[in-house]
């Protein structure tokens, strides 16, 4: 990871937009989501929480990137902070507890918090035109009617670099990038302050992905949006986020300012994720040297089969007996950089694990 040491020299332009010590717009504390129990091939389980004790906060106007592999609980966390699944713990939005809210109270809050999903061909009803699709929240929240509604829909389309010419089109008449723009326009209809973006660029080609990423960053700057950006793509997350939270098996194992995490991750899993990103540089030295990633243990686990002790222990090249007995706490190392690892000092210092074979 030495190659990334020069990160600190580059000015982080996104930070200019962040109000320095803005109070969090959204805060989750000890969030826990438990899905109905099911039996897995791995044997009996003593716990079946998809998300356990997740604590995170997103300052107003900032973006928190939530990364992790499939099954790590990213999407469930996104749903939970919007009060879309039953969760315990606490979620405060603009200082107000929202878990347990229902009916009219929650519906009024929904205007202020929205979600954009991964696959726009699934999240847009194929039998509705663009005008009808964006019209749904406009009507449901009684934002505008008649000509005013149409004007509003056109202005929303313009915000996402489309135009009135798209009003009559159906989703199948749009390209993947255009569909995702329509989904984003729909989420903006209620003038939300907070949007959960769940893998919004994953189904897109790389250049279209770049357009959508730029669009989201522009919209954030123009409208002061606060984003929870869920993705498995560390490159995209780095581009949009001021802070990062890394999830593994339903828990946050590392969180902190984006540049710190990318330059000097202190959790072995974060290091493995970064190491796994294939570099297009044919001369990249780290191309085939795997330090943190072990072939025999790579692979997603289900959150339902959580071992005793550290969730990452059975994949971790640093793991010792303490890791298999005691759950590491998410402790602050420096300036908002938190890590849940018994061996964080060693990882942070860049000392490699003892030996790949010793397990």
């Amino acid at each position, binding site marked *: 990871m030495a*190659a*990334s040491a*020069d*990160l600190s*020299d*580059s000015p*982080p*332009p*996104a930070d200019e937009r962040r109000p320095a010590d803005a109070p969090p717009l959204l805060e989750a504390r000890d969030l826990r989501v438990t899905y109905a129990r099911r039996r897995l*091939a791995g044997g009996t389980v003593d716990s079946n929480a998809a998300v356990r004790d997740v604590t995170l906060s997103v300052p107003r106007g900032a973006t928190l990137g939530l990364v992790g*592999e*499939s099954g790590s609980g990213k999407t469930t966390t996104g749903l939970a902070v919007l009060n879309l699944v039953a969760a315990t713990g606490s979620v405060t939005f603009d200082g107000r507890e929202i878990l347990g809210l229902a009916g009219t109270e929650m519906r009024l809050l929904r205007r202020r918090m929205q979600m954009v999903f991964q696959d726009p061909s699934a999240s847009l009803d194929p039998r509705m035109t663009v005008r009808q699709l964006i019209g749904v929240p406009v009507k449901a929240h009684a934002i505008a009617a008649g000509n005013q509604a149409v004007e509003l829909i056109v202005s929303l389309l313009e915000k996402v*670099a489309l135009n009135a010419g798209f009003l009559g089109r159906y989703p199948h008449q*749009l*390209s*993947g*990038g*255009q569909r995702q*723009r329509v989904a984003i326009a729909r989420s903006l209809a209620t003038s939300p302050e907070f949007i959960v973006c769940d893998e919004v660029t994953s189904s897109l*080609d*790389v*250049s*279209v*992905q*770049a*357009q959508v*990423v*730029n669009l989201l*960053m522009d919209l954030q700057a123009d409208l002061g949006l606060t984003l929870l950006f869920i993705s*498995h*793509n*560390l*490159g*995209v997350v*780095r*581009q949009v986020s001021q802070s990062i939270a890394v999830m593994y098996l339903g828990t946050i194992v590392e969180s902190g300012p984006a540049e710190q995490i*990318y330059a000097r991750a202190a959790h072995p899993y974060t290091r*493995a*994720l*970064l*190491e*796994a*990103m*294939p*570099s*297009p*540089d*044919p*001369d*990249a030295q780290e*191309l*085939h040297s*795997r330090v943190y*990633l072990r*072939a*025999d243990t*790579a*692979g*997603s686990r289900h959150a339902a089969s959580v071992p005793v002790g550290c969730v990452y222990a059975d994949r971790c090249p640093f793991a010792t007996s303490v890791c298999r007995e005691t759950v590491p706490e998410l402790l602050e190392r420096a300036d908002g950089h938190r890590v849940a690892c018994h061996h964080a000092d060693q990882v942070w210092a860049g000392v490699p694990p003892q030996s790949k074979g010793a397990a």
Partner: protein
Amino acid sequence: MTESPAASAQAAPLLDISDLSVTFRSGGRGTEVVHGVSLQVAAGQRVGVIGESGSGKTVTALSVLRLHDRRRTRYGSGSAITFDGRDMFRLSSRELRLLRGGDIAMVFQDPATSLNPVFTVGAQLTAVLRVHQGLSKSDARKAAAAALDAVEIRESASVLASYPHQLSGGMRQRVLIAMAIACQPRLLIADEPTSALDVTVQATVLDLLNDLVAGSGMSLLLITHDMGVLAQLCTDVYVMYAGRVVEQGPLRDLYTGPRHPYTRALLLSTPKVTGPRPHRLAVGPSTSAAASAGLPETGCPFAPRCAYAEDRCRSELPALPDRPHAAACHRADFVAAQPWAVGGATAQEPLPDRT
């Protein structure tokens, strides 16, 4: 690993695709989706084809084994594909069937749909070995276990007895790779083999493919949209856009000095985890968006979105010169002379930001 075996690149190619054009018919209309693609893979060479959805890369790869629907596919009159000197267009269906999974094996993108859900992994893997190598049931069983060993699957007995849905995505892709290499193919065609996998699993599958290809000396034709994945496995690159090869050459030359504006855009629009973070991502045009907007009738297909385009580009289709590193661009020399930081860290590309 990425040292290009220059000698092998100059030997007679194992796979030679020449002037391939593919037309799909639907509703009485024909649409040509691949236009005059030429591509060579020498014995032991690892070649990557990169492009976005709709660029024709998969159609090109499927043409090698003639896997398109015969009733609605037409190949151009000048099109030729030879494998080991044999004209693929003249093979009988029986000969083709023996070649598929035999000398030429394929790994597809989605491991969930490439395996039959109602048969065990063992049944599917032994079937391949019995058909292609004429093994007895018990020999095939042993060979299947050995094939799983080769892809670093430890508990081969339990995996052989499993149904596909009982395996993780990475495990399924390993099984498919085991199936592909079980008959020691001379050419492995891998179509987005890791796109459906998590990044950590992708890394281990790439390592595995790398070891297998290097260890056996088989040739590789990789289809991908990800330059990072390509760089892990290949030494030579073909960049496709709108059904044509727009740039080709050794990976290192392409990466350090791209000659086509599209290749530059492709390299710049990928967000990276190291190096300086750009204020905005460079935005290249996508083939699918171009296709929905309609490609130009004449001239370079890339011209409407190209910041370097001049009058000639709109009237005259640029040819791909016959050189080791070549770009189908009238202004390739000018483009190549523009400032370029390796990896696109600081290069500012004047590209239109629109769909």
